[in-house]
């Protein structure tokens, strides 16, 4: 390989600042998208296992649509196609006046996509608790909402901490797709450093290390959370 190595570029101004700023945007996208994914996904997961066939059909349709279209395609649909379907002045608002148009679109798109995956995790958690608990709850006179509130969900969430952790790590890494619609997050900043210095290999090595550090930190924290909240007698014992 014919290449001039220069590791010092990573510490030089302004490139170090770019990496830190990029990490900031990456974390912002991941956390905001996770809030959407977790809250919507939990609601859908409950719907998916509810006794009402209408709610079940609604949640199933959502999952089938959002889980089966590639995230990159969804991003493009939200960014380029969705605004064109709106009335003129709304369309303009979405494209121009909305705060951080590209970032907001990325957060919504990644959040809605991941919600379908979280929904499936919540559903499998609820199913893992078993029908016996649900029937027992109803038998002592609890409403369906109470059964979910006091029996199914507290158990289910504890069971699915490891798969939810990996969903979060996935969202963190998928946030890099936001660069395709122009959000300058960590990967985009890395590319920018390459464009200005042509030291691409050093820049991408730095990005790899930063991504790994964050994922390792999240994994370590979630392992502790899982250990503390583990239910005796279940298979959930801190394996993220």
């Amino acid at each position: 390989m014919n290449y001039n190595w220069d590791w010092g570029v990573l510490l030089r101004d302004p490139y170090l600042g770019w990496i830190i700023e990029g990490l900031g945007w990456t974390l912002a996208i991941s956390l905001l998208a996770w809030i959407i994914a977790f809250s919507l996904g939990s609601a859908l997961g409950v719907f998916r296992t509810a006794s009402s066939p209408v709610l079940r059909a609604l949640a199933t349709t959502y999952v089938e649509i959002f889980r089966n279209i590639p995230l990159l395609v969804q991003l493009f649909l939200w960014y380029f196609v969705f605004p064109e379907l709106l009335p003129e002045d709304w369309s303009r608002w979405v494209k121009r006046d909305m705060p951080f148009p590209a970032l907001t679109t990325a957060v919504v798109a990644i959040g809605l996509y991941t919600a379908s995956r979280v929904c499936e995790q919540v559903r499998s958690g609820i199913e893992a608790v078993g029908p016996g608990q649900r029937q027992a709850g109803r038998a002592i006179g609890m409403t369906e909402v109470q059964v979910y509130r006091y029996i199914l969900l507290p158990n289910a969430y504890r069971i699915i901490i490891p798969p939810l952790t990996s969903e979060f790590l996935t969202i963190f890494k998928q946030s890099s797709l936001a660069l395709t619609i122009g959000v300058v997050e960590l990967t985009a900043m890395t590319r920018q450093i390459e464009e200005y210095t042509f030291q691409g290999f050093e820049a991408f090595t730095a990005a790899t290390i930063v991504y790994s550090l964050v994922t390792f930190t999240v994994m370590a924290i979630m392992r502790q959370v899982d250990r503390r909240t583990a239910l005796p007698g279940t298979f959930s014992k801190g394996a993220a």
Partner: protein
Amino acid sequence: MNLRLKMLAAAAATAVGLAAPAFADAGDSPTLQRIQERGTVSIGHRETSIPFSYIGENNEPVGYSIDLCLKIVEAIEEQLGGGKLEVRYVPVTGQTRIPLIANGTIDIECGSTTNNLTRQLQVEYLPTTFITGTKIASKVGSGITELEDMSGKIIGLASGTTNEKAIKAAIEAKDLDIKIVPVKDHSQGWLALETDRIDAYGSDDVLLYGLISKASDPSAYHVTGRYLSFDPYALMVQRNDSTFERLGRVTMAGLMRSGEMAEIYAKWFEPGPTNINMPLSDTLRTAFEIQALPE
């Protein structure tokens, strides 16, 4: 590769080495050695650099730069002993072209790449094949002529291009209030302009004319303003490989000397398959004359 395979390969290499020098000469060039070994030339091409290097009607890369590269492929075939070499097309973007040349994935880049001194730290360039500069394209009736008219408006710029740097520098120098939206490539930048996400798109003027020629309504867009940068295009090859670089220079000088260069230019620009219609400029004609070194 296990040991036995390695020995076999070494033996084969020795055999080739003993038998070959009489008619096939890769010399000390790593690029030529690589091409000879694989029997293929890997050409890096762009997908929307009209009419330099883009995907044509048959889903094959075509264009001015591609034609020039195919001339170099012919010269490589001759150098290596006349056997037909397979051409492998590898799509590249503004961001991938330099690392892919540096790590040897592609042997030569045939796109619309500006030759500048910073890039020469990582790659080497053949003679200049085209001269252009940064301008801005906007919708007719938007009231935008120069960058200075864009106060409070939004400009789209493709990441990894010299245009991005030139326009960012111009904005900073004059402290203009212009928002920059980075886009991935020219087609996405154009889509953003068409859908009103941005007010103007900045790129090399020739590429802007190319994009307009392919737009759904070419009369709705125009290219305006002064040149914001000087961008001489050249084909890109690996650094520290003067043998291969010379082969490229010899080919290009030959084309310029014989006048074939102007014919290839006419094929793509006067008016060319995309109706771009840019007659050979005096500057470029002079550049061809100066670069037509004698044998």
